[in-house]
Structures are given as structure tokens and as C-alpha cells.
């Protein structure tokens, strides 16, 4: 008998509607991805708590991090966009480096993020 290893994919109507938020980190010094990811999670967990962050469906997308331009993309569900942007605005330091987050674009698809 064949053993099913993966769950069957949910139909589109039952899937969570997602949004991608593209932002730039403005700072005087170089920053690394690990510091940024930790700061995002810690700031949002401090502000909304574990239950609050669980509802946002937050995901920091590692392979879209641009170290040169300091551009990052996070994914969340469509009802939590304002919540996540407000949380990102509360990030003021990455380690010892002072930073400002500039929101570049919000889109429902990764392809949409590339459009001007």
C-alpha cells in the first residue's frame, strides 16, 4: 500500500489570502539578515504578544533579502498588513545600529512587488 507523505494542498478558496510587504532598511552601517530577522520577530512579539503574532501569519523571506540595497520582504495574511507595518515601524535598532524602516510596496504576489 502506498503511504501518503504530504498533505493534500488546500483548495484556493480555503487558503489564507497573503500579502507581501517590501521594505528598505535605512542605516549608516552594514546590517546582516540574522539581526534583522531577530529584530522583526522580537519587536512584533513584544508589541502584539505570541497570540497576536500567530494571527498575522508572519514569515520573513530569507532568499529575497538584498544585502546591497538593504531590501527585505515579509509575508503575512491580508487582514494583518496594517498590524505588521505598524510593528515594523517600531524597529529602531539592529544590534547597535540605529535604523529606519521605509515601506516600499505591498502586494498580493511576488511578481507584483517587482512592478513600479
Amino acid at each position: 500500500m502506498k503511504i501518503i507523505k504530504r498533505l493534500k494542498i488546500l483548495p484556493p478558496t480555503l487558503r489564507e489570502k497573503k500579502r507581501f510587504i517590501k521594505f528598505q532598511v535605512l542605516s549608516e552601517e552594514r546590517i546582516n539578515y540574522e539581526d534583522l530577522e531577530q529584530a522583526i520577530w522580537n519587536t512584533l512579539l513584544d508589541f502584539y504578544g505570541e497570540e497576536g503574532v500567530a494571527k498575522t501569519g508572519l514569515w520573513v523571506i530569507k532568499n529575497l533579502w538584498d544585502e546591497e540595497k538593504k531590501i527585505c520582504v515579509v509575508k503575512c495574511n491580508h487582514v494583518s498588513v496594517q498590524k505588521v507595518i505598524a510593528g515594523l515601524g517600531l524597529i529602531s535598532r539592529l544590534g547597535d545600529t540605529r535604523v529606519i524602516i521605509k515601506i516600499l510596496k505591498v502586494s498580493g504576489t511576488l511578481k507584483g512587488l517587482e512592478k513600479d
Partner: protein
Amino acid sequence: MQAFDMHVHSAFSGGVSSLEELASTAKILGYKGICFVAYPLSKKEEEILKAEIERVKKEFAIEIYLGFEARNVKELRILAKRRKEFDVLLARGGDLKLNRIACETPEVDILTHPEFGRNDSGLNHILARLAAENNVAIELNFREILTSSKASRAKFLSHMQRNVMLAKKFKAPIILCSGAINHFEMRDPYCLISLATQLGLELKEAKDAITKVPQKIIEEIKKRRDERWIMPGVEIIR
């Protein structure tokens, strides 16, 4: 989006960063204009600040306004008398007496952080009604949230939520400001809007709080610069 940050302190008064640093950060973040806020200065210092503002305005091609923040009732009365000499009049909230007088004075544009240093929100239904009558904008100061943490941040948020509720009920204008004292405390307008939605404003109301409310204040500034303007509500028609 034509966003304005109407409460930024420079190194001239209470701040750390220079006018250039603040103006360039505002430009990068996409602001159309900012207001440098100072505490009452001597005539000589005031002239230097005005000359610096003119220079920075040309250098960065951004709208820059000069505002004065009254820290007590005496300063507020003096500044209200010479209202035509500068752009924006702010009253530093926190003291109940000053909160009340600021809400009663039509010359005042913005009542900054009415909940500052208090165990209550600093506003009640009477003050909110007065602010609406005299068109005094109630400020939601982002710096208070940014620089506090845990219990103190929770208190600030709760007081701000109460002020938002009162201002919405009595239709008093609400304004979103960074209240930055250095350029790293300035925030993207979209972050301020999103935070305001977490404090009880609808998305449209939050956008208006950073675009339309400051624009109304700027319209008043333009009217005030006219020679025919005498005081709020009084101007020479013919």
C-alpha cells in the same frame, strides 16, 4: 500621498540632529513637508533659525515650516500675541491647566501629547469638545511609543486610544507626528498610519491625520501671512 510631519525638534531646540539631517531624512521617507519645532528663543536666535530654514528649504526642495511649542501658560500667552510672526503654534500637553487653555485658544494649532507624564489621558469630553470648537488638533506622538517599552508603552497606548475615542466622538482633528528629536526617530508615513489604525482610527481617518489635517494648518498659515489677517475669525475684507 502628501504627508507632513508637523513636530520635529532640531538641534536648535531640544533635539540632537541638524536641520539638514532631518530635512534629508524627511525627503527620503517621502514627506512633502516638515515643521521644525522650537521652544521660545531670543530674537537673535530666532532670526538665525529662520535664515537656516530658508537655506535648508532651498537645498532640499521640501516645504519647511517654523513652529513654536509653549511649555507653560505664560509662554502660550506670549506666543499667541505674536502669532503672525511664525507658522505653527503648538502647546506642550501633559499639564491639565495648559491642556485646557490650549483647547480654548483658537491661535493654537496642535496640542502635543496631552497624556505626557500623566496617569490619565489628559483629555476629557469637555476638552475634546473645546478642541473641536477651536480647531485645535490633538497629536498622536509616535516618539512616546517608540522610546517606551512594556508597561509604560502599554499605558501610553491605552491613553492614546482613549484620546482617539474622545476626538472621534466630538469631531476634534487628530494629527499624527513623529515628535522626533533626532533623524533616526523619524518614521515612514505608512508606519505612522498603520500605528494609528492600531489606536482605533479607521484607515481613511489615519491617512487624513497625516495629510489633510496638516494641509488645513498650512492653509491657515498662508491666510495668516496675508496682511489682511488680524486674528482667527477676523480679517479685513475691504
